[in-house]
């Protein structure tokens, strides 16, 4: 069969498929008066026909304009037919109630390693700086150290606020950006065989430890600990989880098992997406608590510690027990 004959024979089917695709994809067609009757079965049938025609056209080396046309319509139809919808209210609810805590439990080894990589430097540096406060100057310069003292001094009207910020909302915006950046760094560092993750975890742990040790030594512990107690339940957990996701992809690259290294990495990344959704939500919660609750000076410290205790029970409890039955 000649190319022109081939084109003429199937021209009508192709035009119908293109019309359907333009209609579904919301593209402008030349003859908008011509309404297309949409039918999924018809689209699928035409798509399979076009696939056969494409194979034939390639096999017979037909001119490129015919192959291009068939490629374009099969590619569009392929996207439409095999498109996966991931989100909906039900999916988000299921994710919160079952998938996220189950995923954290399934990855508990990575969570444990990430927690150790974060907490060991925190505790170590905290005691070191408490013992020798001048060591804080090897972490930050003297001006920053002084501004920390300002932020957590008992006389401020809002704890943890820099002088430039005039409302809690500003601090909310600041915390979100800052904490999310730290968490995403910990995750992305996993691409360097997990070394980046370990570095960012230890670095941020050491920094927090230095701050805690220094402020405690300066006698500012009452304001500092009532400030960090509540939101840290969400914030530190989220950072450890992002580290766990990073370690997971790093480990997948180093020890791919029976998969290729690339496939192993792709699988691990896809499976860590659920952790990323969950921990981002946790960071938003943490930033809200940090800006509006933790910083409030009108609240009695006792109330903050009670709520903090409740959060520290609720968050680990959520990861330990939530969704066990339904996850099967």
């Amino acid at each position, binding site marked *: 069969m000649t190319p022109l004959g081939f084109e003429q024979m199937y021209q009508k089917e192709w035009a119908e498929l293109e019309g359907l695709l333009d209609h579904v994809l919301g593209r402008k067609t030349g003859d908008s008066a011509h309404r297309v009757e949409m039918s999924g079965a018809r689209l699928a049938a035409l798509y399979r026909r076009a696939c056969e025609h494409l194979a034939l056209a390639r096999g017979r080396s037909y001119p*490129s304009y015919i192959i291009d046309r068939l490629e374009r319509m099969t590619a569009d139809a392929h996207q439409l037919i095999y498109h996966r919808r991931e989100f909906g209210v039900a999916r988000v609810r299921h994710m919160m109630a079952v998938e996220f805590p189950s995923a954290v439990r399934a990855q508990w080894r990575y969570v444990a390693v990430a927690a150790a990589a974060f907490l060991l430097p925190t505790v170590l540096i905290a005691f070191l700086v408490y013992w020798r406060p001048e060591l804080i100057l090897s972490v930050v310069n003297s001006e920053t150290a002084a501004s920390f003292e300002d932020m957590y001094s008992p006389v401020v009207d809002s704890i943890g606020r820099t002088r430039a910020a005039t409302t809690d909302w500003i601090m909310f915006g600041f915390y979100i950006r800052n904490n999310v950046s730290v968490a995403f760094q910990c995750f*992305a560092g996993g691409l360097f065989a997990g070394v980046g993750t370990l570095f960012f975890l230890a670095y941020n742990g050491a920094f927090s430890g230095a701050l805690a040790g220094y402020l405690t030594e300066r006698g500012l512990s009452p304001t500092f600990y009532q400030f960090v107690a509540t939101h840290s339940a969400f914030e530190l957990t989220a950072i450890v989880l992002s580290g766990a996701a990073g370690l997971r992809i790093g480990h997948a690259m180093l020890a791919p098992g029976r998969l290729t290294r690339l496939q192993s990495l*792709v699988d691990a990344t896809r499976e860590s997406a659920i952790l990323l959704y969950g921990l981002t939500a946790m960071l938003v919660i943490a930033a809200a608590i940090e800006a509006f609750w933790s910083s409030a000076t009108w609240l009695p410290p006792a109330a903050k510690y009670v709520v903090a205790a409740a959060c520290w029970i609720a968050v680990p409890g959520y990861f330990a027990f939530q969704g066990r039955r339904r996850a099967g």
Partner: protein
Amino acid sequence: MILGPSDVLDTVVAAETPEGILLELRPAGLTARFYAFGLDWTIRLMIIYAAAMVTTVIGGIGVAFWLVLVFGLEWLYPIAFELSPSGATPGKRVFGLRVVMDNGLPVTAAASVARNLLRVADFLPFGYGFAIVSMLLRRDCKRLGDIAAATIVLHQPRATSRMPLHTVVPVSPARPLAPEDQAAIIALAARAPGLTAGRLDELAALAAAASGDVGRSGPAVTRRVLGVAEWLLGRR
């Protein structure tokens, strides 16, 4: 011999569909993606700047809104646009690019989130250094985030216009032609309008054996070779 996409001297990546056909994906290289990124970056900067002018007037809550906006533009801007039907940020759309999965399907939410968060790794050591090295080294021009998320940035296929038919007399080939020879002669005829007359004559001379004009060249031979192409297309 039939040329598969992998044999072609081009950066084409093939994705097989369940129907057993190969979709040809044309990955976008560093330059196109750099322009798209630059445009997106400029758009975001202009929004941030415009918002800053408005919010400084409002003060307090306005500044907070601005900070959240900066955060949103930094992380959610690419994700939101990639998950829209066009599968591309405005910058990518202007330059005709699109983000899809390795198998040619629309990018999934998990993949879009992963590839955009992994930007942090691509950015290292500075100025998207790893992304640039990775894109230059790989045939499919992926940055690290694309590799891990199994996504790929493509050139949107552009509609090719129908091949013009030449006003020449169809000539039946002087000898039987193998399929790839037929394809080459038809391809020459398709390209003819874009070639200068001299170059067309040179190229047609190479195929002169098809019309039985071995060793000769010139406009007359060219017309006869184009005539063979017409004959092969089906004009008799």
